[in-house]
């Protein structure tokens, strides 16, 4: 058996087609280009921040096919044909903030904002999965475990935890009411 496709060559620029924040986008990348640099430099989506570039700080967290993960540990060529959602896609079509963003604002869950884009994307996925899998409110311990994958040097995390718990509670109550 022979290889079905030849490898993408290291020197070439390869087409990457993706759905970024509900919009079809196309760019070009060499195999070694990270998704962080592709989003920022090739597609101009600078909401995703670059921190440590080895998966520790969480600033670059995006959703790929709904799943929160590190864009700095992902190659641009790996998202060809996939859906990528970044912080730019969280706002409503009319530009207003989503419930999670509003809660962050209300609770002062950010100061410099460098880590915030990644944290929001993690929280968005985590809350979705919790609602789908178990349909219950999370505990503070669980929220802190989820946030342990992010480094924030401004807030001390407490207001972030409060914002996430508030949104989880409001969504849970809302979901129960709509089922009743």
């Amino acid at each position, binding site marked *: 058996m022979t290889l079905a*496709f030849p490898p993408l060559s*290291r020197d070439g620029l390869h087409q990457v087609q993706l759905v970024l924040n509900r919009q079809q986008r196309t760019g070009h990348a060499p195999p070694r280009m*990270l998704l962080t640099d592709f989003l920022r430099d090739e597609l101009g989506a600078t909401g995703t921040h670059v921190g440590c570039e080895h998966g520790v700080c969480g600033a670059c967290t995006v959703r790929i096919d709904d*799943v929160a993960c590190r864009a700095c540990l992902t*190659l641009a060529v790996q998202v060809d044909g996939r859906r990528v959602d970044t912080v730019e896609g969280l706002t409503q079509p009319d530009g207003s903030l989503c419930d999670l963003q509003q809660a962050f604002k209300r609770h002062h869950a950010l100061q410099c904002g460098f880590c915030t884009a990644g944290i929001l994307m993690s929280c968005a996925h*985590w809350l979705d999965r919790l609602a789908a899998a178990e349909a219950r409110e999370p505990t503070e311990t669980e929220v802190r475990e989820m946030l342990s994958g992010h480094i924030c040097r401004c807030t001390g995390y407490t207001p972030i935890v409060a914002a996430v718990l508030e949104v989880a509670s409001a969504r849970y109550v809302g979901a129960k009411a709509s089922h009743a």
Partner: protein
Amino acid sequence: MKPAAFDYLRADHVEQAVEALARHGEDARILAGGQSLMAVLNMRLANPALLIDISRSEPMGQLRVAQGQLCIGAAVTQARVEWRAGLASELPLLALAFPHISHFQVRNRGTVAGSIAHADPSAELALCLLALQGEVLLRRARGRRVVKAADFFTGMLLTARAPDELLEEVRFPLAPAGAGYGFEEFSMRHGDFAVCAVAAVADAQRLRIAVGGVADRPTASDFPLLQGSALDDALNELAWSLDARDEPQASAQLRRQLVRTLGRRAVLQALSNRALERSTA
């Protein structure tokens, strides 16, 4: 930092992946979840000529129970196993260990097989595989072989896998009735690499204690059911036998003490879970 240049092959079938490995051998690396490999590439600690991406392969993403084992394909993420309904009864030890494995965002992409193949001495999944006496299925272009966990981990980031072999499947034996499990870990921050992690398995006759983060690979030892000072003595002997590493973040002395402390806690947890299991059976 950014990785050095490499060619990139997306392999949707295991045959493609092993053929590419046969052709390129040590110059090629398998990219599964990339949660260790991509960091290594970004820091330029490795410089492969070819990356073989198996992360989107459906055939390699199979997760099934067969012959009393949970068989986890090469591309199955840790999150898929962690969120599996019934994991707590199928593999209680894994259910205890998952919250200690890095972070939610990393488990979403990181694979079980990738962690086993990477063989970090502090990795929780490698520790659990050894504690539960699991095995791995290795595949090369010419055939397959099964290797027991005890024979697979051969040193710091070293395994019995040959350069042209793919770790096709990891197999965890399902928990037998009447067994109890304990897991304890100490790390500098939640989700960091374990300074010391201990897994304990207790059944009606014996006790199995596995330790990670201390020696250059996970280790496991079998004991009769021990209690009180006999258990302390056994753990002390175990702690000294592991040739603990001195590192800036943790001295060998601290690691030995952690083996004694966490070991005792994990054993007590396993024994009490076993009692619970019996009373509800």
